[in-house]
């Protein structure tokens, strides 16, 4: 899927300043790494791309038949991995993934492959709170990848993880992208530089906040 963002403006309710003030960006199949200092808008960009936030102005276009942000778009096209994982707390890992597949109209058998690839098959029947942070992270990624989304959005997918977990996740992302997925990854993690096809570095065109400058 190709995604094109034109003249995007966005600010949070009650905020005076825009997070984005006329951003132009596009991405196609492959992995685009979005980098920048904390608070520059990396997560916000992912949520705008999924249609989870409404822009103040500008357009976000994809070649999907569904409107960006519509229920159908979210069901079928988007796989989102949140920074705070966000698994359904009262459902097992297996049920979390099955729900996502049901919504996308996919077979539940698709889940097994990704569970195996991410090494969490034996935790399938456990509840999220019974898993470690790394295991929950992998489960969240499995949920996003299982429905074979056209647009995969990952917000700090390797935050706080060791190298082993990071390698497993990178492998899974590469596998997904090989099937034509457009992947946007918001991360500080330099270990992801090697898997990315393109980098959008906010540091190069967004001014660092003053209070951070004084600390450097």
């Amino acid at each position, binding site marked *: 899927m190709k995604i094109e963002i034109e003249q995007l403006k966005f600010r949070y309710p009650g905020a005076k300043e825009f997070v984005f003030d006329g951003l132009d960006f596009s991405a196609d199949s492959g992995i685009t790494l979005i980098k920048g200092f904390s608070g520059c808008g990396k997560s*916000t960009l992912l*949520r705008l791309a999924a249609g989870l936030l409404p822009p103040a102005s500008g357009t976000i276009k994809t070649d999907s038949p569904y409107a960006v942000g519509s*229920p159908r778009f979210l069901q079928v096209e*988007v796989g989102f991995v949140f920074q*705070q994982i*966000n698994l*359904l707390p009262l459902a097992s890992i297996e049920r979390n993934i099955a729900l996502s597949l049901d919504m996308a109209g996919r077979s539940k058998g698709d889940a097994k492959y990704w569970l195996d690839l991410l090494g969490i098959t034996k935790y399938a029947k456990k509840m999220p709170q019974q898993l470690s942070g790394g295991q929950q992270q992998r489960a969240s990624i499995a949920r996003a990848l299982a429905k074979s989304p056209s647009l995969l959005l990952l917000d700090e997918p390797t935050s706080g993880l060791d190298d082993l977990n990071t390698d497993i996740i990178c492998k899974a992302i590469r596998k997904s992208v090989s099937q034509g997925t457009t992947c946007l990854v918001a991360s500080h993690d330099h270990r992801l530089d090697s898997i990315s096809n393109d980098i959008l570095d906010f540091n190069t065109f967004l001014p660092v906040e003053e209070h951070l400058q004084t600390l450097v």
Partner: protein
Amino acid sequence: MLLGLLATMILTLYAEIERELKSQLEKNSIYRVFSSEIVSNNEAATVLGRTHEEEQIWKQRYGADKVRHIKQPLLSAFWKNAKSIPIIVYGEAEPEFRTNESLSEPAKIWFLSNGNLSLGAVERIRVLDRNTVSYPREMPDWISQNLSMDRAIAIPQEFMEVYLRKGFVNYTIANLSSLEEVEDYIEQMSAYHDAENRKIKIVSSLEVIKNLEKVTRFQQLARAGVLIGCGVILSCTLGSISWLEYRQESYLLALLRSFGTPAIILQLHAFFENFLLVLFGLVSAFFVWRLIYQSSDTYLAELGFEEIGSLGLPLYDTGIILLAGTIGVLLAMIPTSIGLRKPIGLILQ
């Protein structure tokens, strides 16, 4: 449960007031009008000359069996060792006392009592300086109730003309059929006596009837108010619970929406959840009411409350309950509706 008890207390209060008023009416006889006129010796001759005509007017207008006239002279009869008994005078128009089969046969003097005296076939009495006999019979209810007498001597008017000219009390007792007739009778009586410049005192249950109607009217409003009030309180309670629940579950709702769950589905879920809660509450209320009714012996029945089956509610009350419940359910959905308008990206991090 607390709301139901409060509602029951309010409705019971109204029902108790209604019962008390009805009890007063039954004592006073709902459509009975009692009027009395004190006629002094100056007016007695004039009034006596007109009473026959007046009696005919009222009897023709309202029915001979509905309006009765008696007079009480300003003297008493004596019976057995100077026991004083009041005298009432009956006219030609009171057939109840006129049992003489022909005009040549004189009308009788009756000894009226409530049956608590030991009386013979005749009883000797003394009126002024004259001894005479009287015939015992039971005191009619309309005399004992209105004049508060347990015994009296009933004498035909023709025997008492001379004494009546010294002054008397003129009583009229009307047992009418409807509130409209009572109002009309009182109006006509008052107007007639005002025109004649005569003072008359009228006692009726009209005020009590009007108060009863007022209470009944307010009871209808109170019932509607109680039901709507309960509906509002319920909706506020459900709404508060819904809002608290939403704040707790806003994250969950946002997560489900991020999977692509349409907001309308979540809205319908909230609707059915509240609907089932209200339905459960109403059904429980029926059974709880039955328990309350059964445990209160006959008191609630006396107040006019009924034990209801599942379909036994009057249509008016059923309609109000359903309307209040529906409004409550819809109002309780407002917090969820407002919450579902919030962008998912502002909730999920």
